[in-house]
């Protein structure tokens, strides 16, 4: 049987996921000494790990070249379409929030507001649910700059501690949604390899609690 292939989001989520895998008894030495290898066997070769950028994890899982993936809810909300979201892994916790300059009355007046963000889909959905028309501008770098230089009235961004906001005289006016790492599965894989995936899911779930 082919090993189950799991795509992990490089960086912090990768580290926490590997810790979790080790907690349930899978040997992850190959990942620790990965060098330049991109596909790494773990456990008793029952699984192999692929490291990828967050949005690519979704692409790999959706297309079925990877059976499972670990990715942040932020990426799922922004890019996700069709896969199964099986488990909240409990780490990588933060939130999406709407922020603007301190003492700025965001909801005042009838003018259409401008929002700068790295997450245009999340932003659009958030304001659509409020039946509010906004102009969304996509920014690639430090979004906090946009309201300071007058490009936008507010920003929608990931907030962890809020210290960057504070340092720039910005404040959260509303939480959009909470974020954490999720285990996702390809739709066909879950049907074709149900037993293996469910077993892993059960083990992980037990290890989280």
């Amino acid at each position: 049987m082919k090993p189950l292939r799991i795509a992990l989001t490089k960086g912090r989520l990768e580290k926490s996921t590997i810790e979790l895998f080790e907690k349930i008894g899978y040997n992850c030495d190959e990942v620790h000494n990965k060098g330049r290898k991109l596909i790494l066997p773990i456990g008793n070769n029952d699984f192999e790990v692929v490291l990828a950028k967050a949005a690519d994890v979704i692409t790999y899982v959706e297309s079925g070249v990877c059976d499972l993936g670990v990715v942040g809810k932020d990426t799922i909300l922004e890019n996700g379409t069709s896969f199964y979201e099986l488990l909240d892994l409990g780490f990588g916790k933060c939130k999406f929030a709407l922020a603007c300059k301190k003492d700025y009355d965001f909801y005042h007046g009838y003018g259409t507001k401008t929002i700068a963000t790295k997450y245009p889909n999340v932003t659009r959905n958030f304001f659509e649910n409020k039946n509010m028309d906004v102009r969304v501008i996509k920014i690639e770098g430090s979004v906090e700059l946009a309201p300071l230089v007058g490009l936008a009235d507010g920003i929608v961004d990931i907030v962890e501690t809020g210290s960057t906001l504070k340092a720039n005289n910005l404040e959260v006016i509303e939480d959009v949604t909470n974020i954490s790492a999720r285990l996702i599965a390809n739709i066909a894989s879950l049907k074709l390899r149900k037993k293996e995936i469910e077993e892993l899911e059960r083990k992980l779930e037990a290890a989280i609690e």
Partner: protein
Amino acid sequence: MKRNLKITPEGTKDYLFKECTAVNYVCRKIQTVFENHQFHQVFTPTFEYFDLFANDASGITAESMFKTTDNKGRIIVARPDSTLPIARMVSTRLQNEILPVRLFYKQNVFRNNPSLTGRSNEIMQMGVELIGSKGKRADLEVITTAIQSMQAISNDFRIEIGHSMLFNALADSLKASDDVKENIRVYIENKNYSALNNVLDNLQQDETVKAIRKLPSLFGSDEVFEKASQIIKCEEALKALEYLKDLYNELESLTLGEKIIVDLGLVQRNDYYSGIIFTGYVQGYGDAILSGGRYDKIFDIFDCSMGASGFAININHIAEQAKDKEKTNIPDVLVFAKNDCDIMKAISYTNELVNKGIKAQFSDLSDESDAREFAQKLGIAEFDVIGE
């Protein structure tokens, strides 16, 4: 102006040689199954009026259709699906036909998918429609046809079956707004347990909420029915469950073991399906390649009440897998006419060889050394020259 002369639009592609043989091979296999079950082929137009698909029951969003207008300014679409056109056809052209009718189709459907996802916007589909009958006999006939089609094209496949009334009945007895119910449906469809639990936590905790919480995890073999019957109290839903169990037990006689799965979390296009739902998967492809079920409601659009069930198979994806097994078609003999006066003789000679079952090809090059080089490059073993 930049002109797009040398590329095809996103989501479309050319099919060459082996790719075509693979498509034809897969189609032939499936067509044999359809014809053995006495389904008869129909074609419907590539274009239909937008109105045909512009209702909730179609389960197709307006933005996923390719639209243009006819010469009176009415919106027409490249058909995104073959079932509604066939229902239109049956309710008008076949109204006096003896029912039930068994129809099958082999035609392309068009979907305007989001860009850069690698999905095909033009998909060849083969499917059947069994129209004018309801109940267990019709359902089993359609599912069996689906299973046999899958068997004809793949050794490693799964068919999962569910029932749309299971969720619909539970949702009806749920004390929540329609928007919340739709969210719940989407979370069940995506097996998004955490989001589902979050929404359900905000509702009054009753038997229905308890049952819905478990719905996405209720898939597998017959143990599912026992688990489900313990947590589902809603009478309508229990009736659907009972019916599904009956079908599943009947299908056991095909001895396909774990190739047939029950999934009570099958809730897709729930405004469209009104009874059983089933989906097919093959090893090596990440999405469903077959989907179908019972959709009696679609005939309400045409003001006639009729049972309707069927399924569609996406051919391109299976053909993709089959193409490596296909041999490239290289002729055995290349026939060359030495002079212009020998051309007809050479063509007749080629035909003679072909009629004998030899793969012969007439060379349309006029220079002998060019023709020899062509044969050599392609690996054609024999080179026959006609004329002095």
